[in-house]
């Protein structure tokens, strides 16, 4: 099975998770069987979509669309159980107190386990993952780099044996353009664009990865500047609002210019005044390319 993998990252607070969900929904509507993957100990989508539970095993949330929450420990457990096969040995392995502590903190091991699981389909290694498409709502910028570097770092530290081999194959997989895509979410604000630009350049330099940029929450209006100026003279609430919009639009234009200088595919997602989760995700899914 050919499985595509999408990583969605960006600075904290830019709306990564919502964009990831929208991308997953869009792919599922194209007829693919999609798994939306959250990383970490706690689920965002549980609260956001008001789901009863989100755990390691996929939960269906829409036709062709499931969500799962993966931690390094759970990925490692599943992987080890797959190969150990003898349940009593697996139990011994994981229920050892020291092993528990160790799995959580051994440098790069949780990150490596996650990346191993994410790429297990194309590498045909480990337990089966019956989905056509994985959309990973990944860590924010700094920790995302650590996630990508884990296989490379491990392959350098450990040249021989299964660990080295697996690490090299994961690393090759995340650099393979035909399998894996990267989406950096940003906002029309200075800091998120700066961080997105730096991340884009780092991915290019270190992994030869070409990420695309998704600028979220762009105010979409064709109000002429003159009418904004005119409205400001009224001195009412609307006048203040007009000043606000003018400032925002101007700022937005400047930031957009800056973002366009990044040699990346850039798309914008409008700011929707929608407080409900599903309608918001659906609207964004419709405009995503």
């Amino acid at each position, binding site marked *: 099975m050919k499985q595509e993998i999408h990583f969605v990252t960006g*600075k*904290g*607070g830019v709306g990564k998770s919502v964009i990831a969900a929208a991308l997953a929904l869009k792919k599922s509507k194209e007829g693919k069987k999609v798994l939306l993957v959250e990383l*970490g100990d*706690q689920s*965002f989508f549980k*609260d*956001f979509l008001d789901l009863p539970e989100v755990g390691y095993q996929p939960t269906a949330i829409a036709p062709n669309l499931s969500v799962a929450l993966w931690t390094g420990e759970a990925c490692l457990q599943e*992987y*080890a159980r797959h*190969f150990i096969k003898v349940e009593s*040995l697996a139990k*011994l*392995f994981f229920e*050892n*107190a*020291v092993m528990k*502590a*160790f799995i*959580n*903190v*051994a*440098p*790069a091991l*949780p990150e490596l386990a996650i990346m191993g699981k994410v790429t297990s389909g194309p590498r045909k290694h480990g337990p089966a993952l019956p989905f056509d498409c994985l959309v990973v709502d990944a*860590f*924010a910028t*700094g*920790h995302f780099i*650590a996630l990508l*570097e*884990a296989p490379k*770092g*491990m392959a*350098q*530290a*450990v040249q*021989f*044996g299964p*660990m*080295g*081999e697996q690490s090299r194959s994961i690393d090759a997989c995340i650099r393979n353009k035909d399998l894996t895509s990267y989406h950096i979410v940003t906002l029309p604000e*200075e800091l998120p664009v700066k961080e997105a630009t730096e991340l884009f350049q780092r991915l290019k330099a270190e992994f030869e990865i070409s990420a695309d940029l998704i600028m979220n929450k762009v105010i979409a*209006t*064709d*109000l002429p500047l003159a*009418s*904004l100026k005119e*409205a400001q003279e009224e001195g009412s*609430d*609307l006048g*203040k*609002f007009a*000043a*606000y919009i003018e*400032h*925002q639009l101007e700022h937005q234009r400047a930031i957009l210019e800056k973002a366009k200088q990044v040699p990346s595919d850039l798309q914008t997602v409008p700011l929707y*005044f*929608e*407080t409900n989760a599903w309608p918001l995700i659906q609207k964004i899914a419709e405009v995503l390319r």
Partner: protein
Amino acid sequence: MSSTLFQDTKVLICVGSGGVGKTTVAASLAVLAAKEGRRVLVLTIDPAKRLAQTLGIEGSKDITKVPGQNFAGELYASVIDHKKTFDDFVARAARKAESAEKIYKNRLYQQLSTNLSGSQEFTALEKLYSCYESGEFDLIILDTPPTKHAIDFLHAPQKLSALFNEGVAKWFRDPEGKKSGFFGQLLQTGTRQVLKILESLTGSTFIHELGDFFINIEQCQEQLLKRTVDVHRLLVAPSTQFCLVTSFDQAKLKEAEYFSREIKKGGYHLTTVVLNRVFPYWLDLRSEDKSQKGHAGLVSLYSQMRSYYNQRDLIYQQFEANIRKEARVFRIPDLVKDISDLRGLEELSGLIAEGEKKA
């Protein structure tokens, strides 16, 4: 301005998930305290360029007196250098200089001391403690590393200290070194089996590199344990307060409620909740919806935004009713512009102080 804000506080820790404006809020609170006449240090993690310029700490990792200030007290700032803080800790904790060198050279240590999960939290607390110990400041305000969830900050140090656990190194140690190979000296057959499984999954080079790491780092264990106890004592002291910074959406507010419950269970003192960038400054939710002639497009956009924020206000009021029992709540409007000088920080701190008066 109230002079009781953070009066008996020696340490103030700003926590919150990524992208909520923690650093800016931390700096504004520091300005507020400096205005009240205190000698205050703000420790930041990754300030925006303009904020770093404003604080005079761009390109420097040293503790710097913020330029251009005219406060009753004094304001200092610093960016935490994670690698250096980690290395310094190892240098102090390792018994011999050559062992510290060995640790620095271990590839797994190199990964650990950069940006893996948990290590920034450790260095933030390490830096906080050493500044606190120096006794040079009346108040230290700590901005915390960006985490997915606010609570991650409190869990990280425990995870990391497990790394230095004696038990782990014991697995890998082989005092005689030759008797019966690498795992020869292990006492428990159960543990030996566990390591064998690990070896079959990962390969012997990995096990050796890992063993090297744990055995070298083990000698730091005593110091780390002591430090962990000291830091924990500082974190639960009544003079250490937590300030939760959060942005405004339903999931974030739910998380804030969860966090306030968890933090209480842990014996920490959450005294302040800052809701950042709640409403744009132009918005007066109480004003009546007047129809304005001649600006149809603008009016439509205005009413869309207004009804959006009105809906959010309902969510907010619910949240406030719940959290008020635990902590004081400040809401800061979205000033829309980036803060580019000390005056901008003062403006923001003024808004916080004003919110305090109202509360």
